[in-house]
């Protein structure tokens, strides 16, 4: 069975590595306007604007600038669509956040606001950041450095605050590297 076990170990290790290989480069950092709201006439969207797909298809763009109506079978088969064309943009997440708020769910809007910042971070780095926030993985300084990276490199101010808040609480409750 040792061959089997070796294979298992390799498959698991490689899966973790490869899952993100194809999208290592930042996909939409700088190519979109993360803080701009998707609005109609500058007005906040409400639950009557939902669903966006049928009511405001014109507003939905991929990070590469393609319209949602460009996502056709023909374009896929002719290699005119890539995986990057199938990602959600910060503007769409902001729009969905406004709809959630209008439906009385401000907590969801908060989550979508964080998410809109995270669209700029490559898959691989994002998975690493999640790992760093798990208990006993990081020193306080490492978490604070990660917060700085979020803020400075990705303009992710809300997420930076989130990580600093985690660092403070991990210190208080002994969840930092070496505390276990």
């Amino acid at each position, binding site marked *: 069975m040792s061959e089997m076990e070796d294979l298992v170990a390799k498959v698991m290790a490689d899966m973790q590595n490869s899952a993100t290989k194809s999208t290592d480069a930042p996909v939409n950092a700088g190519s979109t306007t993360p803080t701009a709201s998707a609005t109609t006439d500058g007005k906040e969207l409400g*639950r009557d604007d939902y669903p966006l797909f049928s009511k405001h298809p014109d507003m939905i763009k991929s990070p590469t600038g393609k319209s949602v109506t460009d996502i056709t*079978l023909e374009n896929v088969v002719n290699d005119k669509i890539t995986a990057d064309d199938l990602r959600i943009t910060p503007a769409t997440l902001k729009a969905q956040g406004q709809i959630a708020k209008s439906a009385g*769910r401000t907590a969801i809007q908060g989550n979508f606001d964080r998410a809109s910042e995270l669209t700029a971070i490559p898959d691989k780095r994002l998975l690493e950041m999640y790992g760093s926030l798990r208990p006993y993985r990081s020193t306080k300084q490492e978490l604070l450095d990660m917060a700085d990276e979020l803020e400075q490199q990705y303009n992710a101010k809300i997420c930076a605050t989130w990580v600093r808040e985690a660092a403070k609480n991990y210190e208080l409750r002994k969840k930092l590297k070496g505390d276990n």
Partner: protein
Amino acid sequence: MKRQKRFEELEKRPVHLDGFVKEWPEEGFVALEGPNDPKPSIKIENGVVTELDSKQRDEFDLIDMYIADHGIDKSRAVEVMNTDSYKLANMLCDPNVPREDIIPLTTAMTPAKAVDVISKLNFVEMMMATQKMRPRRTPATQAHVTNLKDNPVQIAADAADAALRGFPEQETTTAVGRYAPFNAISIMIGAQTGRPGVLTQCSVEEALELSLGMRGFTAYAETISVYGTEQVFTDGDDTPWSKGFLASCYASRGLKMRFTSGSGSEVMMGYAEGKSMLYLEARCIYITKASGVQGLQNGGVSCIGIPGSVPSGIRSVLGENLICMMLDLECASANDQAFSHSDMRRTERLLGQFLAGTDYVSSGYSSVPNEDNMFAGSNTDAMDYDDYYVMQRDLKINGGIVPVKEEDVIKVRNKAAKALQTVFEALGLPKITDEEVEAATYANTSRDMPERNMVEDMKAAQDMMNRGITGLDIVKGLYNGGFRDVAQAVLSLLQQRIAGDFLQTSAIFDKDWNVISAVNDKNDYEGPGTGYRVSGETWEKIKDIPMAIDPSDF
């Protein structure tokens, strides 16, 4: 003692195989109203919660802190905490009080207050409240699609079968972890063949699960576990902040997700802090709310044996579903883990959610016989389909599925198996033979399937990841293999990520990709004649069980 014959016979009944425990509050073996549960309280100073459920801020653990800072609507908190729990409980089950009037109150409570309110309700009152409080007007249910050998052809056929029966969400997991990428694409292709618009997921370790989603192999995730004590949360290798971050990671990739919790998990993991199961579960539900996640799978879930063993435990489990709905969260109400040997008791477990209707009555219903269920068996499985259909018909209830014709099932199973065969060929994966397609079309369990070379499959699954295959490659493979409609369905699923409509609360799709969620299908129950009623085409389908005799035949 000389045995009394009736007692001797009764001991042979299946219910005697179930585990029952007398209450032991010090170890958390108490469903609700535990003697050590904290008294509800809140103090807010300068906009900061300085006291929560009888604990001062400097005594807060990670969970208290997270809930205090993110999980409670402070604007009406003091008002609600000063309102009598009987009055609030009455509002919950009173049809004359609309849902939208109560949500601002229930989302301003503390966890201990929510538990206090729930403890005032009997089982039927909880059902009345559930009927009104679930976020989506239309009830639904979710399927498990797995098998003992991770046979991908069988997964595709079973997913198509389940999709035809009406499950709008389907979940797979692996028997052997390395199969995850195959299981994920097999359930996706099978489900889109059976009925376009079905959402599929593959439950594996958190980071791996997210990476499968990023590739376009899954559309949502559910097994993002949260726990009610800090020690168990840490043992689960996360913190509220890491889980909250993970939630945002999913949304940032246009993927739906909900958390998972369930009473009994803290007892099972040995750190219940002497609190009742419902109180600890309430903390999990507030963590979910605090994270801005749209929903939660809860109701004992895989730990159902623990609350199921103590007095009032099954009542308390409906109570935890209800707290989830009170916090305006999508509720996938468990009924998933097999927990009783007694058919009567399995039905009892199901009834609260089934009769009242929840966003997903089961999460999930095993679409395969339980011997193939890799979530350790479900409360209801494929062998219960006909009983379930009859229950829906007898009581005029939409439990989330509809009867199907054998010839239609054979057709979609065969098509799904062939579609997967085509994709495997296009992606250079180990061959799926015509013999396997035929076997999967007619199979009931994995015992009906030919053996595959599992080592070769695992190598190929790994290689597929190395090569950076994505959902788009699957679309192309289907299209080039002549499965244009399935290709379009998989592409539509990927396309929906750009729009994000299905990130909203309780979202599912119909066969034409119209989203149905708590935003555009909000629960408007206000007594007889309002809310969801089984009618029209759905009722015609539910009525039409193949077993029924047609009088016109005589």
